[in-house]
Structures are given as C-alpha cells and as structure tokens.
C-alpha cells in the first residue's frame, strides 16, 4: 500500500518538475518558412508561435508520449508523435497548403463571373447597377464587357459574332423565355428584371458547361438574392414613373411584393423626340418574390411577375408613302421557382422550373398581328462533391414551347402554330489535379420531338494556373440550338443549328488590376436558310447555311491606380461571315462590328458622398443591305459612339438621389436604312434612315428605403 502512495506521489512530483525543451522550424512545402504558426501540445497550454524565420522553442512539463501539433492559416494542420522524457526534441514541420477552391485556379475561358464570394472577381454585382449608360439594365451593363457588340437599335446581347437569339438567360437555373421587353421596331429594349434582384451573375460568352443547351453563343446565369435581412419598404420615384416594394420577414422566410408604373409620356413632351408617338410607352407591372428556408439547408425561391404595356407610334410606310399607326399591346406572365437542398454531406439537389406566357398584339392600319408564346422548363440537377477536388454533376430537363401567330387582314386570316418538346440530360465532372490545374468534362444529350432530332454534344474545359497571379484557360465544345421561331412555325423539316467553340484565354490579376485576353474561333454549321420568298412553304427552308466568327477580346480593369477611382477598358476585334436566313451568299452579318471599345470609369467622391460614372463606347461601322445595289450587305453605317454619365448621391443612409444622361455630346447615331419591300414606279426601293428615338436620354430618380420599427427585428432594441 505504501508503495502505491509513494508511486502516486512520484507521478505528481514528476508532473511538477521534469521539463522537456521542444524546438524546431515550421516550413511550407516548397514555399519557405511560416512565421506566426501556432505550435503546441494539445491538452496543455504549452506551445509557442514561430518567429519571422519560422523558428519556435518552448518547454513543457508533460512527460511520456504526446502529440505536437502545428496550425497555420491556409494550411493543413500538422501532427507528430513525440516522447517527452527530458531530452531536447527538435522538429521540422512541413505543412501542406489547404486545398481551397476559392483560391484555386478557376475556369475562366469565356466566363465573366460577378458575385461577392471571391476577391478576384473581374466585375461585381454592384458594377451591374452602377455602370453609366446601362441605367440599371443588366443587359446594358453586360454590353461594356468584351465579346459583345452594341446594336443600338436592338439593345439585346450579340455575343462573339452570334445573333441575339443565340443567347439564353437563366434565373436560378430555369430558362427565361422572354428576357427582354417588347419594344417598337428599331428602338432599344431593356431587360425585364431589376438588377437588385440578383446576388450573382455568370456571363459565359463561349465554351460553357454541359448543363446549358439551346444556345449557340452565350448564356447569362442570374442568381437571385437569398433571404432579405429585414422588413422594409422601398419607394422609388423616377422621371418615368414610381415603384414600390414591400418586404416582410417571418420565421426563416420572407416575401417581397413590388408594383411599378412607367409612363414615358411626360418625359417625351419635355424632350424632343425623333419619332411621333400617338401614345407614349406605358406599362404597369407587379411581382411577388417568396423565400423560405426549410430543414437545415433547404431553400425555396419563388418569383412571379405580371406586366402589361402598350404604345402607339406613327411610322412611315415606305410602300404606301404615308404614315401609319403602329400599335403594340404586350402582356407577360412569368413564374420562376427553385428548390435547393443538401442531401447529406456531399449531395446537393436543385430543382428549378419556369413558366412564361407572353402575348403581343400588334395593329397597323387594318392589319392585326397576334403572337402568343408559352414556355415551360423543368430541370433537376444533382451534384455530388466526391472530394474537395472532384465534383460530379448530372441532370435532366424538359422544355416545352408553344408559339401561335395569327395574322388578320380585312380579307384573310392566317394562323400558324407549333409546339416543341425538348428533353435533355447531361453529366459533367470537375477534377482538380492540384490547386494549379483543373479539368471540366461533360456531355449533353438532347432530343426535340417537333424536329424529331437527337444531338449528343461534348464539352471540355481546362485551366492552368501559371503562378499566383496568372492563368491560362481553354474551352472546347459543340453547341446546338433549334432554328428560330420565325421558321419553325412554318416547317418542322429542319435540323438543329450548330456552333463549335474554341476559346483560349489568359488572365492576370495582381493588386486589384486585372488583364484578360481571349482568342476564339467559332465554326457555325447547319444554320437554317430561307431559300425562296415563299416563307409559308415548308420546302423553302433547309439547313445549308454556315459561317464562322473569330476574334480577340481584351479586358483591363484597374481599381488601384486612381484613389477612389475604378475603371475598365474592353476591346473586341471581330471577324465574322455567315450565310444564313435569306442571305443569297456568304456575307458579314448586319449585327457585327469589327471593332468594339468600351471605357467605363467610376469615382467615389467621399466628401460629397457621391458615386459618379462615366462611360464611352465605340462600335465600328456595321453593314446593311441596299436592295437597289447589286452587292449584298454592301452598305456601311456610320460608327456608333456614345458618352454616358451617371451620378448617385447618398443624401441620407436610406435616401439616394440618382441622375443619368446618355450620349452627352450628342454623337450622331444611325443604324442603317430601312427599305420599302417593293420598288416604286421608277424602279427604286425607297428608304429611310434608322435613327434612335432621341439624341439623348436622361433620367432622374430618388430611392428611399424605410425600415419598419416595432417588430421583432433586432435593430429596434437599440433605439
């Protein structure tokens, strides 16, 4: 017994006196020493931080077998078993960098990503809103990025030698069938969606993931905001009309209801217009957005909107040599839902669906033209994060699209319609070999019941990080899309159109400066053609068209050089020709400019709490066709130029005053000519020059945010 007591005392004694010295260095694998690393023995307080040379040394009273642990930010922790017996221990610890996707190489070929997750973003969500000239239009802001061609008379996206209908827009994974507002012919359109709705944007101008089909040129992926933070009421007063938005929160959910009314009438009375409006554009819209969290990680998002708009414009009818009324009534109903949930640790399921019903009623003289589009999209994507370096994805989707057109003249009624169901499945894997190299490979299978065609498309992208600041990226893939609605309504004897993309990009980012250059080649084949004036006959169409587009895009952004200033410069060189639609031969298409330049500058004036933006754009002359000439697409427009400015003033934390003017110097803008469809008595096709609705456009606005008090919001407790 006594022995046991002595033994016990001995242990206690021992733990009080014996000390072991532990020293050594901490290094990063292939990357020098690590100062400030935490070296310690778990279960004790004993340890030290490494000095500037990565050295450490400390004493411990613990004896026997123990573990030495080393921790450092951004590195895997290091453990080593040691035996503490009073003799000095020396340890050299080599730490491996943690694999962090946010810091690893990213697939950047063809892709512009905007969001707040990464530091190295080329553009942020805020940029989408504050770019002068865009005046809060998502598509307008995107047109300051390389790869796009500005078509002032359209306002839509034209990407890397592609026509505007080669671009698709997705919200939370579901297709938006009608992303643009209906406008009068030859006036610029705007997107239907408020950019404040989105927390992140991915604009891919080529080589995109196998998840996306039915787009030959580009996809725009918009991700909506998650739960709002508080109850609030937003009031906006713009020179074109007011808007009100109310947000209410409940337990893990929220609803935002928005109503707005726009009328360009008062503005158009004030500012001289190039066209005569009988009834200025007027529209009213309402939207409801619901967010609900469920379980641990589930998130349900529903967005639904309805808008109605109309106008009446006096347009010159070149065939009859008189002015006629052009009336348009549009209504658009849109629902977009998505549900995202984690299934266990590694699996994520995303279900998204959208429905659109869009109606255009156009009337001129005694002719009525009705167009009804209804579109549905359902998609399920499962992704499996196999490891931090491997992600597998797979999914299936169903698109349904019905288009009805009715053409009524006093004498006749012509009605056409078509319905297409497309089914698609895709699979894709993303593999990081290391922090420096990543490959994404995928395939997509698509079937169209209307065309009775199937396509299988491979997609491949890779990115290689050369050093901490720069990387190469390459993308290759086949892309298929159904021919335009205008043709499908008359024939189902067509095949998918196809484009093959080859993209190489180089990106360098350092100290808030980014340089991107991109080289690409696009090979178009199976483009649909109308070979005969008899557009209503199925036999007039075939897929014999083809073409190419190649070019260089350069993007430079610098947030550093000018204090409180931030600018970017985009330049695109484009060489493209194609033979499609009713082209008699291969020619440069009318939407393409050889040179496109955009310079965007933003400056924060702290003293007067103002954010100012200035933006210059240039597009070299485009071609158009003069039916009086022998040469097809032989005429050239003048170059397009604009200089826009915007000013935001934070009057109070919750009140912003905003003003913007486009085309300040009043550059002459022309978009070619419109011709009569038949020659006049002297055998000449009469023409009129296409010009914008007005030389300049200005807008003034006031945005007020009111947060409601007297609720369970935490903020109230301060007051």
């Amino acid at each position, binding site marked *: *017994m006594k022995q*046991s*007591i002595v033994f*016990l005392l001995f242990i*206690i004694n021992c733990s009080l006196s014996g000390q072991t010295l532990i020293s050594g260095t901490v290094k990063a694998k292939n990357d020098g020493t690590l*100062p*400030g690393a*935490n070296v*310690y023995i*778990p*279960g*004790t*307080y*004993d*340890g*030290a*931080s490494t000095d*500037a040379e990565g050295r450490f040394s400390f004493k411990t009273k613990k004896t026997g077998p123990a573990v030495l642990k080393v*921790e450092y*930010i*951004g590195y895997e922790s290091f453990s080593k078993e040691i035996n503490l017996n009073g003799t000095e221990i020396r340890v050299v610890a080599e730490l491996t960098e943690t694999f962090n996707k946010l810091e690893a190489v990213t697939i950047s070929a063809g892709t512009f990503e905007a969001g*707040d997750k990464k*530091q190295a973003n080329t553009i*942020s*969500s*805020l940029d989408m809103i504050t770019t002068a000239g865009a005046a809060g239009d998502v598509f307008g802001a995107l047109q300051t990025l390389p790869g796009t061609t500005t078509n002032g008379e359209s306002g839509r996206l034209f990407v890397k030698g592609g026509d505007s209908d080669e671009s698709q827009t997705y919200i939370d994974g579901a297709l938006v069938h009608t992303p643009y507002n209906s406008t009068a012919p030859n006036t610029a359109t705007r997107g239907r969606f408020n950019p404040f709705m989105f927390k992140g944007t991915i604009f891919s101008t080529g080589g995109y993931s196998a998840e996306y089909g039915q787009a030959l040129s580009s996809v725009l992926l918009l991700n909506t905001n998650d739960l709002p*933070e*508080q109850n609030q009421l937003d009031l906006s007063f713009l020179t074109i009309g007011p808007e009100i938005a109310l947000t209410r929160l409940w337990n893990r959910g929220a609803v935002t209801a928005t109503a707005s009314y726009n009328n360009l009438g008062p503005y158009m009375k004030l500012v001289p217009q190039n066209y005569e409006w009988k009834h200025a554009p007027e529209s009213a819209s309402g939207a409801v957005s619901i967010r609900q969290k469920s379980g641990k990680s589930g998130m349900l998002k529903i967005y639904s909107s309805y808008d109605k708009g109309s106008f009446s414009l006096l347009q010159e009818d070149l065939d009859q040599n008189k002015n006629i009324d052009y009336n348009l009534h549009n209504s658009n109903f849109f629902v977009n839902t998505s549900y995202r949930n984690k299934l266990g640790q590694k699996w994520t399921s995303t279900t998204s669906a959208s429905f659109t019903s869009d109606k255009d009623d156009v009337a001129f003289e005694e002719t009525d033209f009705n167009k009804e589009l209804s579109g549905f999209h359902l998609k399920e994507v499962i992704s499996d994060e196999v490891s931090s370096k491997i992600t597998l994805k797979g999914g299936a989707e169903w698109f349904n699209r019905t288009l009805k057109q009715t053409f009524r003249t006093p004498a006749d009624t012509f009605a056409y319609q078509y319905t297409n169901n497309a089914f698609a499945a895709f699979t894709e894997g993303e593999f990081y070999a290391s922090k420096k190299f990543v490959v994404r490979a995928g395939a997509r299978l698509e079937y169209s019941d209307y065309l009775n065609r199937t396509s299988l498309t491979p997609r491949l992208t890779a990115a290689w990080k050369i050093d901490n600041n720069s990387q190469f990226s390459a993308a290759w893939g086949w892309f298929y899309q159904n021919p335009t609605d205008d043709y499908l309504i008359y024939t189902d004897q067509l095949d998918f159109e196809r484009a093959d993309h080859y993209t190489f990009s180089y990106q360098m980012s350092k100290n808030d400066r980014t340089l991107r250059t991109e080289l690409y080649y696009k090979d178009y084949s199976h483009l649909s053609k109308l070979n005969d004036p008899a557009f209503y006959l199925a036999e007039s169409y075939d897929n014999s068209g083809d073409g190419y587009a190649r070019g260089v895009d350069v993007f430079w952004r610098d947030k550093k050089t000018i204090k409180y200033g931030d600018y970017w410069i985009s330049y695109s060189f484009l060489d493209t020709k194609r033979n499609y639609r009713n082209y008699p031969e291969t020619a440069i298409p009318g939407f393409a400019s050889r040179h496109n330049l955009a310079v965007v500058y933003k400056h*924060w004036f702290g003293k007067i*709490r103002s954010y100012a933006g200035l933006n210059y754009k240039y597009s070299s002359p485009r071609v158009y066709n003069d039916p009086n000439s022998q040469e097809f697409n032989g005429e050239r427009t003048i170059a397009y130029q604009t200089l826009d400015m915007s000013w935001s003033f*934070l009057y*109070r*934390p919750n009140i912003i005053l905003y003003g913007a003017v486009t085309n300040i110097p009043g550059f002459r803008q022309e978009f070619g000519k419109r011709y009569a469809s038949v020659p006049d008595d002297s055998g000449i096709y009469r023409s009129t020059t296409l010009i914008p609705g007005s030389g300049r456009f200005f807008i003034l606005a006031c945005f007020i945010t009111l947060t409601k008090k007297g609720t369970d*919001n*935490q*903020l*109230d*407790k*301060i007051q």
Partner: protein
Amino acid sequence: MKTTLISLFFALTTIAAMSQKEAYYQAMGENLGGYAQCRSVEDFQALGNTFARIAETEKNEWLPAYYHAHCYIIMSFIEQADPKKKDAYLDVAEKSINRITEMAPGEADVFALQAMFYTARLVVNPMERGQQYGMLSGQAIGRAMGIDPTNPRARLIKLQNDMGTAQFYGKDVTEFCEQARTLVAGWDNFKPVSPLHPNWGKDQAEGIVKSCK
C-alpha cells in the same frame, strides 16, 4: 487504511483539478497582461495563438475563444496592405465567434465582439460590403444591448458605428461627444464578473472624448 487511501486519492485529484483551474487563471492572467505589449500583427498573432491553445484545452470556457477572436479582429484592422490577409485573419476569428455565440448566448460581450467582427468585414471593402455587413453589425449590437444595455463595450461599438455613419453623411458629431463623455464617466461602474472577463475599451472611449476637443 483503505479509507485513508481513498480520501487521499480524492484529495489529490481535487488538488490536481484545482491546480488545473489555477493554471487556467494564471495562464489567462498572463496573457491578458500581454495585451499591453502588443503592437504589430505578429504580436497579436502570437498572443491570439496562446489564447487558441488555452481554448483548445478548456472546451467549456468561452473567454479564451473570445480573446482569440479579439486578437485576430485587431490583426485585420492593423493589416493595411492586403485585403486577402484581412479576410484570412477574419476567417480565423469567425470560427471562434461562431463557437462563443453558441457557448455563451447570454453574454452581451460576445455579441459586442460579433458586431466588431462584422464591422471588420465591412472595412475590407466598404463599397461592396457596406450594406450587408453594416446591417449585420447593427443587428449584433442590438442583441448585445438587449442582453445588457449597460455593457460599456457594446455601447462603445455602437457609438463608433453611429459616429462613422454620421461622419459619412456629413452630420454633426458633437452629440456623440456627450455620449462618449457619459460613457467614460460611467465606465468604471461596470464591474466585470471576474478579472478574466472582458474589460477593455476605456482608452478607446477616452480617445473619442479627446478627439472632440
């Protein structure tokens, strides 16, 4: 004999436990004294690391994790050049912040520190993060004041946030000077629960008062 042995054994374990507690008090006390010598990022990192070691061992104490987060937040404020580093330090702080908000949801100081943490995130990129983190910081401070409206650090951080906003909007800050004076005058009325509990911030409040003159 047997009983003697058992009682001796209990006595020893109690002593061991007490000496363990004592070691905790001693280590914490030494480290808290270390604050005064800290100037650079490296100093605070070394100090933060010692708190991390104690936090690792004392799984039921929220104070070591609190000071660990505090050190790393200060590091992000001191670091001038590299926004990536600022965020990396705050990523470390965030882990401890999350731990203490779960461990000690009834402590005003925990949420005052959380508010300071959100403000630090905001400072990294005010243009892009202003709205989101300003709101989060306000909510955290509201929670701290809800628990204990007399907590001087919660009041200090609220005052700093409010002054920052007022300065930004070009408003008069003299009304805050009065608040700062009241805060300093009454600072010592707030008695920390123990010598190890947060007791910092008076010099910062005095700094505000000084800048008012």
